[in-house]
């Protein structure tokens, strides 16, 4: 039995990536119903006033960060079992060069920090490139760019 990628290339059952074009054959790899995977996907939720949040500049999607001390930002990848808190897949993450584990937002003594996780295309705060694995303080209104995807950080 074989499975096909969207281009129609045939691959043996159990393959995670297409041999011919490299497309991820995640659905074939995931033998559970599709909703099991989406159930763990963090969804942006309605934002209570006065809470910290990240806003995607391109489409104004808001990720609420209230009550969290550590937030992983990246791209969901079921095959690698990576489910970030802030998933940018649907917000230009893939084309924009966002790594699966791209950056972490940390709350430390009421100070928010951002730390690049050795991403391929780097993290920038107000256009300044961050050194990997070095937490950097951020404040209200700062622009945070992951690869080519820009977000704005708000504390209120």
């Amino acid at each position, binding site marked *: 039995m074989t499975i096909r990628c969207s*281009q129609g290339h045939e691959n043996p*059952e*159990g*393959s995670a990536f297409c041999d011919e*074009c490299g497309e991820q054959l995640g659905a074939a*790899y995931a*033998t559970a119903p599709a909703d099991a995977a989406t159930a763990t996907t963090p969804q942006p939720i309605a934002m209570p006033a006065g809470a910290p949040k990240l806003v995607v500049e391109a489409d104004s999607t808001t990720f609420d960060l209230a009550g969290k001390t550590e937030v992983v930002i990246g791209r969901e990848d079921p095959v690698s*079992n990576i489910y970030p808190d802030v998933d940018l897949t649907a917000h230009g993450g893939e084309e924009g060069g966002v*790594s699966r584990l791209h950056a972490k937002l940390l709350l430390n003594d009421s100070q928010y920090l951002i730390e690049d996780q050795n991403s391929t*295309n780097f993290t920038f705060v107000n256009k300044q490139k961050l050194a990997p694995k070095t937490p950097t303080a951020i404040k209200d209104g700062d622009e945070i760019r992951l690869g080519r995807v820009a977000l704005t950080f708000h504390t209120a």
Partner: protein
Amino acid sequence: MAGEVSLICQVGRERIQITGGSQLAYVLVEARPTNGTAGGGAQARMPLNFALVLDHSGSMKGAKLRAVKDAVKLVVNSMMPTDFVSIVIFDDNVRVVVPAQPATDKAGIAALVEGIRDGGGTAMSLGMSMGLTELRKHASPNTVNRMILLTDGVTYGDADRCRRIADDAGASGIGIYPLGIGADWDEDLLDNVGQRSSGMPAEFIKRPDDALTLFERQFQSATAVSVRNTQITVRLPAGVTPKKAVKVLPVITEQNPETLSDREVVVNLGDLERDTPQAALLELMVEPRPEGTFRIAQAELSYDVPGRGQEKVRSDVIVNFTNDPVPPEEANPVVMNYAEKSNAHRLVTRVLDEYKKNGKVTTRLHPNVTRILDPETQRLLDQVTGGGTITAEDVKSIGNKTRKLTQRFE
């Protein structure tokens, strides 16, 4: 007593849902040097037996030859009196500048290195053959035997001979570590020579200034060798056949299909360096099994401990076949990460091969592949797949970077 190296096997999925058909299983086999030595106490490093085989053809003139001379002197200066060194230069001829000797007369060796002049063509097999002769004078199971092979050009009409010498070197426990400088060397041949000898694929010295760093790295890696002649053998039961094998650590290296037989897969790892794990990823086709626990492979790691002889460790690769649905989260992220990157490397290599051969590319890469590459590589690949051109240097640089994709886990 074993214990210098641990053997770790991981599968893409520990549970496989029964579908009634053959299924592909990913198996990662890793040889990880442990910190302590079995004999107790910190072990002194093994003596080195180095042959530096250097291209001094006319095209090396100027900055390249200058940088290489400085780099060679640095390596010789870093050596201990228990190490052996020889220096061989080639153009269309070959000359032994420094016959194999203990690295004691460093000033004398430096003077001989300074005396090297550029001139002539490139006949690499002559240099390799002479380098091998010098290495054999002091090669023993207790020395780290390496040929550092530097060239900036394409060898003339003796590529097959170079490959045969690499096979001979490998059979004698001598690894070849090729360094290509400039844009005109033949990466296919140099990679092949490194791999056949159980050394490494070629490193790219993009600018003469980088020569020092790359020579120094060669020296450092040789001083970190803890065990030698390391080999992974994966034996397969009936109903399991190998589809692919690729070395994924320390760099991605496709394995010759010859290493895959119906019953076993053999991967030569050569010298194993402290703090540098080596690993191979296997794709196995597993015929349908009933519900239950099955061994789909047995991995064996063998290696030589200096002064003590061969050690072996074994590990079973076990999976559970089940009729229950297996959620995707059960996939092992480490194994899947290597699977993704080795697949990306294979496809990028295919694009580059196609480009080198035909000047145009028909392979289309899915964004899954390109997204894990750095922006510069993405841009260059877009250029060739869109019918544009890139330089020979770009081709080398993409190959070199893509091979190292597994050095970062993300």
